[in-house]
């Protein structure tokens, strides 16, 4: 089993899901940060409030330090209802005046420093572990100024963290619930949106499904802008298919006609020959039959060739081939056959040309052009084949030229001679009418074009002009 085709709907869903998860994850993460920060700030403020109230009630009286702790300081701390609290009031010589005597690692230096920088009672927060629990401490340095001396008093208040954690958890959970709701609602909306956006595609599929196999009329559907090119492409492809089909139909009927006519002639001539008593007459009729069947064979060959070429064009990639070598080969192949008809083939090429092409097809093309020239040449004449480079105004072109001295083609006929089964009305020569049509197809496949000119004094010049390529003079 090969992998199933990717579904746009599923891809969109996965993508939106991914984006939503990333966004919501980020929101949840920042909510957590925010919640912790908010909880820390609010409970730090309580600690500060408590410390300030304590600090206010420490005074110097006649050189004695009087500590009268206010109840409100402890009521403030009690707003964290299930947290333990610790405090210590420390005199100038780091001797504990009241409260806990064993608070851990009181940063006296930091307290002095923040006092110096921020003035009286600048709070300094720090964390520590005391009596088996993590504790948030706040310390200040309060300078007691007496009439003749000043002394540093340190106040440290600490509280365990459960109220903070509780508040942070609560805030976080509150936000998380919103995030989850937002997630669900967004996902639903996006799913609905995706369904809506993809609906025209469904409609398009239905419309195509409902058509009969041979119906190639353009689809006319109201579709979004983004899908219009798709519909256009389908319509264009259908149009091409339609014209191909038409051509094929015409070709088939023409081919049938082209084969049927010589067959009918053959049949009647054979009948005549049967009935003919006169030996010389019969000989003549029989040789005519042979001629007719040769022509028929030629026609069938050409048709098969064309089919082969059509297949090659679709399946064979272009390869680099030497055009001059190919032309010489064809000339060599045909020279004996032409001499039998009293026609001489002359090759005069001075360049070596490499082009990307199909050698079989190109050979076929050159052969058909030369054969055509030989067929229409009179006895004792020459068909000149040449390959050269023309230096044009904007670019160089490789030109394959075939010159004959035959009867020539009138200007009116020139536009028809590449049509399939076209036969010149004043032609005496037997022919299939397919050769040049094939040549033209091959030329088009190689992006080459045909030029027709009259030869002097008479005859036709056929030129195949190839797009510019690398050329080396030989």
């Amino acid at each position, binding site marked *: 089993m090969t992998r199933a085709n990717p579904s746009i709907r599923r891809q969109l869903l996965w993508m939106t899901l991914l984006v939503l998860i990333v966004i919501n994850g980020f929101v949840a993460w920042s909510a957590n940060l925010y919640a912790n920060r908010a909880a820390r700030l609010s409970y730090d403020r309580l600690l500060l409030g408590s410390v300030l109230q304590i600090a206010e009630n420490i005074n110097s009286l006649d050189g004695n330090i009087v*500590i009268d702790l206010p109840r409100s300081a402890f009521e403030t701390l009690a707003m964290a209802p299930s947290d333990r609290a610790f405090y210590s009031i420390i005199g100038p010589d780091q001797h504990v005046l*009241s409260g806990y005597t064993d608070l851990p690692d009181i940063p006296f230096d930091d307290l002095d420093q923040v006092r110096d920088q921020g003035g009286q009672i600048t709070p300094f927060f720090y964390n520590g572990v005391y*009596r088996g629990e993590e504790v948030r401490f706040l310390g200040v340095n309060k300078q007691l100024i007496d009439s003749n001396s000043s002394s540093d008093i340190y106040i440290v208040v600490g509280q365990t963290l459960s109220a903070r954690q509780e508040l942070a958890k609560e805030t976080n959970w509150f936000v998380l619930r919103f995030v989850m709701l937002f997630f669900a609602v967004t996902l639903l909306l996006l799913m609905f949106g995706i369904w809506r956006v993809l609906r025209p595609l469904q409609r398009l599929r239905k419309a195509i499904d409902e058509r009969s196999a041979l119906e190639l009329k353009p689809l006319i559907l109201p579709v979004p802008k983004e899908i219009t090119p798709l519909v256009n492409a389908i319509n264009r492809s259908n149009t091409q298919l339609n014209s191909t089909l038409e051509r094929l139909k015409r070709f088939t009927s023409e081919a049938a006609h082209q084969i049927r006519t010589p067959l009918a002639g053959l049949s009647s001539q054979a009948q005549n020959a049967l009935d003919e008593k006169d030996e010389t007459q019969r000989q003549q009729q029989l040789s005519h039959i042979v001629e007719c069947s040769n022509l028929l064979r030629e026609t069938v060959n050409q048709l098969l060739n064309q089919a082969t070429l059509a297949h090659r064009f679709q399946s064979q990639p272009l390869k680099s081939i030497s055009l001059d070598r190919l032309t010489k080969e064809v000339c060599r192949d045909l020279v004996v056959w032409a001499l039998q008809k009293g026609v001489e083939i002359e090759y005069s090429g001075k360049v070596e040309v490499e082009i990307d092409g199909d050698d079989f097809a190109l050979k076929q093309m050159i052969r058909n052009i030369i054969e055509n020239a030989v067929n229409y040449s009179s006895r004792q004449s020459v068909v000149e084949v040449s390959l050269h480079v023309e230096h044009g105004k904007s670019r160089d072109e490789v030109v394959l030229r075939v010159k004959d001295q035959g009867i020539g083609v009138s200007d009116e006929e020139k536009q028809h001679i590449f049509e399939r089964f076209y036969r010149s009305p004043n032609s005496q020569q037997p022919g299939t009418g397919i050769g040049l049509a094939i040549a033209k197809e091959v030329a088009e496949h190689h992006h080459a074009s045909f030029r027709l000119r009259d030869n002097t004094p008479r005859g036709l010049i056929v030129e195949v002009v190839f797009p510019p390529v690398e050329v080396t003079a030989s």
Partner: protein
Amino acid sequence: MKRLPVFFLAILTAIVIGTAVGAGSLLADKVLDKAVDNSTGSELVIYGAVDRETIKSVFSAFLERHPQIALKYREFNSLDLYQYFLEHPDERPDLMLSSAMDLQFKLVNDGYAQRYSSEHTDRLPTRSKWRDELFGYAVEPIVIAINTDLLAGAPLPQSREQLLALIRNKDHLLDEKIGLPDIKSTGIGYLTWSYDSQLSRTYERLLEAFGIHHSRLYSDTRSMLRALTRGEIFIAYNALGSYTQAWSQEHPWIVPVLPTDYTTIVLRTAFIPKASRNPAEAKTFLDFLLSDIGQQLLTEHSSLIPVSGGPGNDSGSPTLFGASHSLLRPIPLGLELLLQTDTAKRQLLFDEWDSAMPHLSK
């Protein structure tokens, strides 16, 4: 508002009648002796500042249900209990019972208690427990006990203002006739007095009046009540309500007054020390104490007032803890209690006390 104290007194009365009817004859010590023989049993050591006579009915009911447990109870003065606990880390009990909320709270705040929660502790109102470590099991109104012989027809004082007026009227008659708990040697005495100092507008005048009349100091409510009965004193200030009420049943001329300006309510609290060697037994006992049965026993067989308001009243004790009236002022079970344990604050209070009562420092 006048009706509320009456209602409260009615409850107290009901409690005391219960005590008279159902008091068991078993003494905790006797039970202990019996239980020691049980070699397979476990032990439970309780230190408490609760009168042995008062709590024994609860002990015996507990032991009836758990005969395998050998219960050892040691009674202390509340301040001694605190100091003993700190000074003897090797002899820590399995359960601490005390009415000195501030000292109990300090021990818990300092991390000596272990957490415990059960359906019984969860049922306690939040203001009756702290951190699932300290649990209130009984409430204690702080009253003024008055020997009515003193009045000679004058109306019973209902508030501190009226008490001050009475002292002014009787003047010399009350010299050396006022009894106070010694705030320096008893935990509950210091707790209630310092609470008065924070709350009362009459605190200064009371202190002055007590000083002028050379008040006597007592180490506990029971000795104060005995002195009252003997006629040694006429007025006992800040006496424990439960004992006084029980005493007044036997000595009708001694009347407890719940001051109408405010009546301090103290929680009797319990906690299980971290160092407890028999925590399972301690938890069993705590649950029993807080259960409907335990609380009912407090109501019926002791003079203590249950914290839950008795069976069928899960919402706490509205008559005691109701915030709806200003009479009752429970001391909050929270960080505010740290103030009571502050040494500087304590010294300030002692200084005021000493300067008001120069006769005591002789």
